C-alpha cells in the first residue's frame, strides 16, 4: 500500500507536467483557469500523500490551505475577473504554439538534467520528481513570456508558484510553515498588483493586449 502511495506521487508529478504543457497549448482563458484548478487539486493530493507517508502533520494544514486557496478561492476570483473584463479568447501568442512546445521540451530536458545530482542528495520520498517540478516552474515562466494578454500571464505566475510548492514538497518534505506563509503572502500581493495593473491597462487602452504597452516607449515610434 505504501509503495503504491509512493508511486502515486510520481503520477501526480506527471499530471502536473501534463497540465503545464496543456496550459501552453490552450487558447481559451476559461480552460486555463480550469487547468489551474486541476493543478491545485493535484497539489493537494500530492501533499496529503506525502503527509501520510512521512507522518508530518503540518503538511495536512498546508494541504488544507492549498485546497482553500488554490482550488476554491483563487479560481473563483479569476472567474469573476474574467466576467468583469469580458475576455474569453487569447490573441495569437508571440511565438506559435508548436515552437513553444519544442522550447518546452528543451526546458524539460534541461531541468531533468539539472535535477539528477540534487535528487541524489535529497532523502525525501518524492525526490525523483524534483526534475518535473523544476520543469513545471520553467514552463510556467515561459508561458508568461509568450502570452500576449495579461490574464494568462497572471495564471502563469500562479502556476509558477504551484511548481515551486511542489518542488519544496518533493525535495525537503515540505517547507517550514513560516516560509510557506511568506511565499503565499508574496503571491497574494503580486496578484493584487497585477489585478490593479490589469484594470489600468484596460482603462487606458480599452484592451488587455500587452502589446499596447509598447506605446509607452521613450523613443519615437516610426
Amino acid at each position, binding site marked *: 500500500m505504501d509503495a503504491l502511495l509512493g508511486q502515486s506521487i510520481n503520477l501526480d508529478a506527471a499530471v502536473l507536467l501534463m497540465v503545464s504543457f496543456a496550459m501552453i497549448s490552450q487558447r481559451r482563458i476559461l480552460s486555463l483557469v480550469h487547468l489551474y484548478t486541476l493543478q491545485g487539486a493535484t497539489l493537494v493530493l500530492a501533499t496529503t500523500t506525502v503527509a501520510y507517508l512521512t507522518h508530518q502533520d503540518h503538511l495536512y494544514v498546508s494541504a488544507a490551505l492549498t485546497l482553500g486557496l488554490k482550488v476554491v478561492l483563487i479560481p473563483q476570483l479569476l472567474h469573476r475577473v474574467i466576467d468583469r473584463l469580458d475576455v474569453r479568447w487569447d490573441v495569437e501568442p508571440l511565438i506559435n504554439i508548436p515552437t513553444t512546445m519544442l522550447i518546452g*521540451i528543451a526546458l524539460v*530536458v534541461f531541468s*531533468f538534467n539539472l535535477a539528477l545530482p540534487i535528487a541524489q542528495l535529497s532523502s525525501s520520498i518524492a525526490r525523483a520528481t524534483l526534475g518535473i517540478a523544476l520543469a513545471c516552474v520553467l514552463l510556467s515562466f515561459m508561458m508568461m513570456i509568450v502570452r500576449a494578454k495579461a490574464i494568462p500571464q497572471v495564471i502563469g505566475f500562479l502556476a509558477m508558484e504551484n511548481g515551486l510548492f511542489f518542488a519544496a514538497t518533493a525535495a525537503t518534505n515540505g517547507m517550514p510553515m513560516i516560509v510557506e506563509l511568506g511565499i503565499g503572502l508574496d503571491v497574494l500581493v503580486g496578484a493584487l498588483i497585477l489585478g490593479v495593473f490589469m484594470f489600468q491597462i484596460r482603462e487606458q487602452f480599452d484592451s488587455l493586449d500587452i502589446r499596447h504597452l509598447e506605446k509607452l516607449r521613450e523613443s519615437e515610434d516610426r
Partner: protein
Amino acid sequence: MIHIDWILVVVAGWLLLGVAALFALHDTQFVARRLFPLGALLGLALGAVALAAVFEGPQVAELTIGLPGLPMHLRLDALSAYFLVVIGVGACGTSLFSAGYFRSGEGTPPGLLCLEYHVFLAAMAMVTLADDGYAFLVMWETMALASFFLVTANHRVAAVREAAYLYLLIAHVGAIAILLCFGVLQANSGDYTFANLRAQHLGPVWSAIAFGLAVAGFGAKAGLVPLHVWLPEAHPAAPSPVSALMSAVMLKTAIYGLLRVTFDLLHGGAWWWGLVLLGLGLASALLGVVFSTVQTEMKRLLAYSSIENIGLIATGLGLALIFRAYGLGTLSALALTAALFHVLAHCLFKSLLFLGTGAVLHATGERNLGKLGGLIRSMPWVAWLVLVGVLAGSGLPPLAGFIPEWLLLQSFLFTTDLPNPFLGMLIPLVAAAVALVAALACYAMVKFYGVVFLGQPREEKLLQARDAAPWERLGLAWFALGAVALGLFPVPWIDVVDKVTLQLVGSGLAQAVHANGWLLLSPIAPERASYSPTAFLGGVTAGTLLGLLIGRRLYRGALRRAPAWACGHAEAAAARLAARTQDSAEGFGQPIRQIFEPFFRVTRHLPSPFDLQPRYEVRIEDRFWRGAYLPLAALVDRMARAVALLQRGRISVYLMYSFCTLVALLLVVRS
C-alpha cells in the same frame, strides 16, 4: 589472380572504354549501344568480385604509376569491398539506363561524356581501394573533376555552369580539409600510408582536430549541413544518369572516407565525436526532408531527399561511435549495420528515382512539377517501376528502405544501457526526430509520385509522352528488383555487412541473426524484436486476396466506367479545367511550409487590389545561403579587393617589389 587484381582489371576496362569513346566522339549509336552496356557488364563483374572479396581477408597491391619513389598502395579489405559492391550495383544499372538515354545535341559530344563517365566510375572504385594518402587524394580529385565535367554536360545553359562552379568550389574546400586531416594523422612521421596512419597514437586534442577535419572534408562531399548547398544545385543541373550516380554512389564514397578515417585510422575516439556526428546528421536529415516537401522541381526534391538520407546514415554512424566509445560492441555493430544497410538501400531507390525523372524529362521535356501529371497512363513502365522506388524511399515495409530505419530505431531503444544519463535522455529525442523525418520523407515521396505520375496531365503535350526505351527499362528494372530483393531477404545481406562491422568495431550481428533462420530478421533476440519481410508480404497478400475473394467471387460485383464524380462538378471534371482544380506541387507542400516556416527564408509578394497585373509569388530559400555563404563570399571579395591593390599595372612598381624583396632578404641573411 586474387580479387584485387580482378578489380584493377575492371577499372582498366572502364578506362579503355572511355578511351575508345574518344575515337567515336559523335557516334551516338556506337557509344550508347556498345560501350555503355559493356560498362554495365564491367560494373556487374565489379559487384560480384567485391561481394566475394568481402568474405576474404585483406589483400594488397601496389601500382607504380605517378611520381617516382611514391607508388600507389592499394588495399582491399571488407570495408572497401562493401563500398565496391555499392559502386558496382549502381554503375551497372545506371550504365544500362544510359545506353538508352544519351542522345546528341546536349552540349557535350556523347563520346566525351562516355569518357568522363567511365573515368568517374574508375576514380570512385580507386578511392575505395586507396591505401595511402597520396593515392586517396589523387583519386578523390579525379573523381571530383570527372563529376564536374559530367555536371557541365549542358554547358550552354548559364545556370548549369554556376551550379557546377559552386560544386567544384565546395568539393575543393572539402579536399583541403581532407588533406589537412591526413597531415594531422601522419603526426610528423612523413609516411602517408594508411598502415602508418593507423599505427600513430595521437593525443586527444590532435585526434579531435583530425576528426573535425574529416567531418568537414567528407561532410562537404556527402552533403552534411552546413556544407550541403551545392547538392540541390548540382544534382538537378547534371544529366539524370549522372545525378543518379552522384546521389547514389558518390555521396557514399564520402561516407566510406568518413568510416575509414574515424573507425579505422582514428580507432573510434571519444563519445562526444559520436554526438557531433549525430547532431550534424540529424540537422541534415531534418533540413533535407523539410525542404524536399516544398520543392517544385522534381530533381531538386530528390536532391534534398538525398541530403536527408545522408543525414540518417550519419546519425547511425554517430550512434555507432557513441556505443563504441562506451565499449558496447554489439550495439555499435547494430547501429553500424543500420547505416551500411541504408547505404545500399539508398543507392538502389535513389538511382531508381533519378533515372525515372530522366525518362520523364526525355519524354516530356519538363522538369517542373507544375507542368507534369498523369504520366502513369502514357508511361506505364516508368510509372510502375518508379512506384517501387517511391515506396522504398518512404521507408515502407516490406521494401529495402524500411530495414535500415527499423535497425536504427532498434538501436535507439538500447541507449538506456548507456552509463551517461545525459545521453540517455537525449537519445529518445533523437529517436523522435528520426521518426518525424521518416514520416515527412513519406510525405515528400507521395507528393513527388502523385504530382508527376498521377492525376490529370497539366499540359496537353503530356498525352503524347513516350514510354522509356528498352535499355532504360532494363536499368530501372535492375534497381527495382534490387530494392525488392534486399527488402524481402535482408538476412543474407546481414552476413555481408557483418564482415564489415567485424572489421570496424569488432563484433557483428550475424551470429544472433542466424540463430533464427534466414526468413526472420532478429538482430539481438526474437523476444526483443523480430521482423520477417516475407511473412509480412505474405500476410498483406493473403489479406488482399481475401478482399478480392469477398468482393469479386462471393458477391460477383459488376464494374462500370464513367466520368469522375468530383462531387457533382461534372463540368470541372471535364478535361479543360480538371488539371487546374487538382493540387499543384506548391499546394501539396503548403501545410509543411506553414508548420515549418522558421526553417525557411520565405519571401512573399502578394497582389494588391490596385495592381493592374496582379501577381502572387512565394520564394523559399535556404537560410544558410543568405546567412552564411553570401556574407562569406562578400568577405572573400573584400579581401581579394584589398590584395588587388598590389596590382598596379606599371612595370616600375613590380620592379620595386622585387627590389624590396631582395633588400629584405639581404638584411635577413646578414643577421
